């Protein structure tokens, strides 16, 4: 973790002062203010697979082949182009043609594309890899419109060799942002519960990985059941539930120090934690004498404040991105349904009215949608609705889909799918058009929580 704290993943000023200033600002690839009105290529995120944009991504050349701790720079150029290819392909919005399917380009071509030589694509991604004297790597990232023959993206990233993959994700984020007008989400991590063992005695460990499954590592040893980890908005902490010493309660894991501390000092069972968007608060549920209510507590501790007070099970609280409201689930009306309240607990009102049950709500970081699990008729589904309860859309259906978590740009949901019989879960991602794909994990996986776009 020391390593992560130290990385300088900075936008390089290959270009302009604008790029240089972005170095200080925690990324947030601003939903492209520049690009929307200047014509050229536009990809409609909601349109999904209907007309994926063909995009060519040849290997990134290097001016001088150099050995680095991450491998030689020419091999890295191949792998980085593949990362960009895979990130963009996995969105379903692009028909990618990667380094294996395109001719090699010369270093001089990177900034002066030979437009006439490319066919079969509407856009072209080129880049380069350079090993710097101080041990860092510089990766250039360029996007060209092949029809209009102009440059759309020009960025450079400096990374330590251990973070070389992040440069590929940053490049893909820049391209995605430019072509869709949405923020990117590829340079992000996911914390989840890795599972092994028989159904009656699952062994559960916290694990963290890049959103594409790379750089996987475990955070707990599996001695105690752990559930529902959630990453903080800055990605520097994880709040989760553990049955350590048979005293099930919430812990906060500090990414930098790799240490745990108890969040709530109370004999009652606490669970269902979630950070506030500003990271200052944590919502959680506490079961006392058979009744479960929602509380909030300072992220660094303090006295919990009770927000709900119904005889039903109130749980699964999630803040709106401005922190003013909370969506949660409650069975106070007879079955699990979604409710919204003000952040102080006032004005609690129901927003879901469909058949079956609604659970595990999570407010989109864009604010426009609430994701949930809907169960009934023998199925568990992932769906979304407006914060007012309208416009419900079910995105998945299987025997056991549960627990959606939003991508940093609010366009993709990660969830887990349990198999009937064995109960073994896998991680899946689904976009808002309903296109789902499995996320590879070394063991079974459940309870994913998608962290922020990394600075």
């Amino acid at each position, binding site marked *: 973790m020391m390593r992560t704290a130290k990385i300088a993943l900075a936008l390089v000023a290959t270009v302009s002062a604008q790029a240089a200033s972005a170095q200080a600002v925690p990324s947030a690839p601003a939903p492209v203010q520049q690009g929307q009105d200047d014509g050229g290529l536009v990809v409609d995120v909601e349109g999904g697979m209907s007309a994926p944009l063909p995009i060519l991504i040849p290997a990134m050349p290097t001016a001088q082949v150099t050995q680095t701790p991450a491998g030689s720079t020419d091999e890295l150029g191949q792998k980085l182009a593949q990362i960009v290819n895979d990130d963009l392909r996995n969105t379903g919005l692009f028909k990618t043609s990667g380094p294996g399917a395109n001719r090699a380009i010369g270093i001089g071509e990177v900034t002066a594309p030979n437009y006439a030589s490319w066919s079969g694509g509407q856009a072209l991604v080129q880049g380069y890899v350079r090993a710097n004297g101080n041990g860092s790597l510089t990766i250039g990232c360029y996007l060209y419109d092949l029809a209009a023959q102009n440059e759309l993206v020009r960025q450079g990233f400096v990374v330590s060799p251990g973070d070389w993959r992040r440069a590929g994700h940053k490049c893909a984020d820049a391209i995605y942002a430019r072509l869709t007008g949405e923020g990117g989400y590829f340079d992000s991590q996911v914390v989840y519960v890795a599972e092994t*063992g028989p159904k009656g005695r699952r062994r559960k460990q916290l694990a963290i990985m890049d959103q594409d499954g790379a750089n996987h590592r475990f955070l707990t040893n599996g001695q*105690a059941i752990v559930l529902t980890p959630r990453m903080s908005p800055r990605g520097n902490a994880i709040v989760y539930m553990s049955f350590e010493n048979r005293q099930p309660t919430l812990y906060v894991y500090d990414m930098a120090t790799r240490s745990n501390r108890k969040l709530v000092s109370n004999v009652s069972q606490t669970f269902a934690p979630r950070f506030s968007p500003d990271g200052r608060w944590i919502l959680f549920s506490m079961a006392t004498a058979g*009744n479960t209510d929602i509380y909030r507590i300072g992220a660094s501790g303090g006295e919990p404040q009770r927000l709900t007070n119904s005889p039903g099970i109130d749980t699964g609280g999630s803040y709106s991105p401005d922190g003013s409201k909370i969506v949660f689930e409650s069975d106070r009306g007879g*079955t*699990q349904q979604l409710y919204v309240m003000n952040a102080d607990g006032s004005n609690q009102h129901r927003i879901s009215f469909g058949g079956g049950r609604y659970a595990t709500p999570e407010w989109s970081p864009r604010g426009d949608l609430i994701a949930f699990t809907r169960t009934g008729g023998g199925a568990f589904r992932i769906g979304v609705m407006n914060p007012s309860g309208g416009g419900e859309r079910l995105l998945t259906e299987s025997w056991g889909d549960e627990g959606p978590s939003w991508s940093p740009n609010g366009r993709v949901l990660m969830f887990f799918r349990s198999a009937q*019989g064995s109960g073994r879960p896998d991680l899946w991602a689904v976009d808002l058009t309903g296109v789902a794909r499995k996320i590879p994990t070394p063991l079974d996986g459940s309870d994913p929580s998608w962290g922020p776009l990394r600075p």
Partner: protein
Amino acid sequence: MAKMTTSLLLAVALVGTAGCAKKRPPELPPAPVAEGDLGAGAGAGDTSDQYGSSALNEQFKREVMSDTVRFGLDQYDIDPEARRVLDSQAQWLAGHPATRITIEGHADERGTREYNLGLGDRRANAAKNYLAARGISATRITTISYGKERPVALGSDEAAWAQNRRAVTIVIS
């Protein structure tokens, strides 16, 4: 309109419960003893089979009708059968006044994870309250909810789910 929908849903839920409460679960395979599969240290220290295997708890299990009461779908009321089981537990506890127990509440796999933690807590406390009403001091009783994390029957069918909706009493000292 909302009210109508709610009561309709309630009615459906009640019918469903009544239906499955009558079903007697067929014989199920015993829960696997799985320690060997898990490797060193796996699962240690957080579940009943660690501390529930004490001689005292074994004696308790021999001398009561059952250490387990079951619940209907989404229910946490103590039915007549559960009452007989808890009565036998209350009698044993009255005769062993120095003992302390913990009651584990569990749910089946057809609920969401967090909700099931709340539901398991309801069930454990329903059993606790019954024992307390039978004169067992509440200070001798702790509760813990495992939600759907520790099923005892491993199938994905109504018979298995009925077995897993349960509260288990364990003598811890």
